[in-house]
């Protein structure tokens, strides 16, 4: 299943852009510390450049949209940038808080399992929330 084909508000894309922009930064840091890997650095630079290309495309789209729609340039530009970032930060924070509140004991590696019918039925009931 490819979630890339799902409709998006842009938050998912923004998240991946931020991830991809961080990759070369992290790899350059590791390289400076003598713990780098050339192949990983090259790869991270490629993903980072792609992310910059996407950002440039988004900026171009915003400029064209503003030119077509008119309106206060500065305000529209700020909203376009800050609102999605704020939403993403809020969503990530909610998820982190949820994880903290729900704290479960660490799981151990699964032992070789013999799946039984009873276990499958329990999972099925778990799935429907029964």
């Amino acid at each position, binding site marked *: 299943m490819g979630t890339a084909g*799902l409709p998006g508000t842009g938050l998912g894309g923004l*998240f991946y852009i931020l991830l991809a922009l961080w990759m070369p930064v992290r790899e350059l840091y590791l390289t400076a510390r003598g713990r780098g890997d050339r192949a990983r650095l090259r790869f991270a630079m490629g993903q980072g450049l792609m992310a910059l290309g996407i950002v440039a495309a988004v900026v171009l*789209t915003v400029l064209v949209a503003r030119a077509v729609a008119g309106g206060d340039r500065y305000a529209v530009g700020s909203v376009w940038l800050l609102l999605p970032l704020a939403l993403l930060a809020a969503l990530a924070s909610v998820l982190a808080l949820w994880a903290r509140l729900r704290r479960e004991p660490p799981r151990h590696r699964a032992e070789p399992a013999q799946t039984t019918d009873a276990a499958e039925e329990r999972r099925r009931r778990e799935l*429907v929330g029964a």
Partner: protein
Amino acid sequence: MTTARDLASGLTVIIPAYDEAASVADTVRSVLTQTTPPARVIVVDDCSTDGTGDLARAAGAEVLRPAQNTGSKAGAQNLALAQVDTPYCMAIDADTTLAPDAIELLLAPLGEDPGVAAACGYVVPRHVGSVWERGRYVEYLLSFTFYKPTQDWYGHPLIASGCFSAYRTDRLRAAGGWSERTRAEDMDLTWSLYEAEHAVRFVPGALCYPIEPHDLDFLGKQLKRWSHGFVQNVRLHWGGLLRLPFLRTVVGVALFDAVVASLVYLLLLPLLAVLWGTPLPLLVYLIDVPAVLVPVLVAAHRRREIGRALLSLPCFFVLRVVNGFYVLEALWTEVVLRRPLLVYEKGH
């Protein structure tokens, strides 16, 4: 040092098949003619009615035929898994062919790192003709060029795709094999492996070519399965995913995005267009064309398929709207009505 041939000599390939006479022989042949052929190829002929088993046997595979249809792809794969006596196994769809070096490349991370339990490859539709095949082609270029490699760098490819993935047999068995509790057994298995603290890798050079749905009826059944499978897996695994910061954010953002955007695409935008008496709101469907174009053209350039990608680009946006419908249907049925999709239907 373990060579590629050593790894492949410890590999069993499992190919589940129900009425796949049109494609199974090509799949078996593409596996047997690999640069590093596997030790065994097992086709599970799941009570086909079109001679699938005979064709697979003639192409050179071992064929298992259960007494009655197992009911799902996962069921068929588990039947073969019980017979696997090699340290590695691989699942390939019966309508999927492989690049000649796909197995060699896909097994590499399993040989290099004992912490890796599974590896998945790069998917490209074999046929790119209809609107839906073209849309899926663009979707895969975007996903496997930008999203999945990024997920892999952070250590968590979201899904080891069921059409072409390799596993350490012992870890696969410890995870219970391919579970039939959801309609997306590949996602279920991948997330189960993460919860058990195993690693999964994405190998961009390991190419496979599945046959994608060519018409809306076939596509609809696939999207229904995938959408319901996604919702089922989020409900099932959410507690475990919360402990994994990267995955909980990826899945959480994807779910939020899919819900809100699907409502916007299917309800809000058409409503605004009608209320305002102008088609301008519908431009939102295309607002991210330039953004999508960047990774798609990068991928197309690498594959020397820029013309094909540009021609197919509009189809991606059509597919995306259709996808939104199935996401909302799945959420409504699974979460609100509490009627999970239990029947596995491929659709061809």
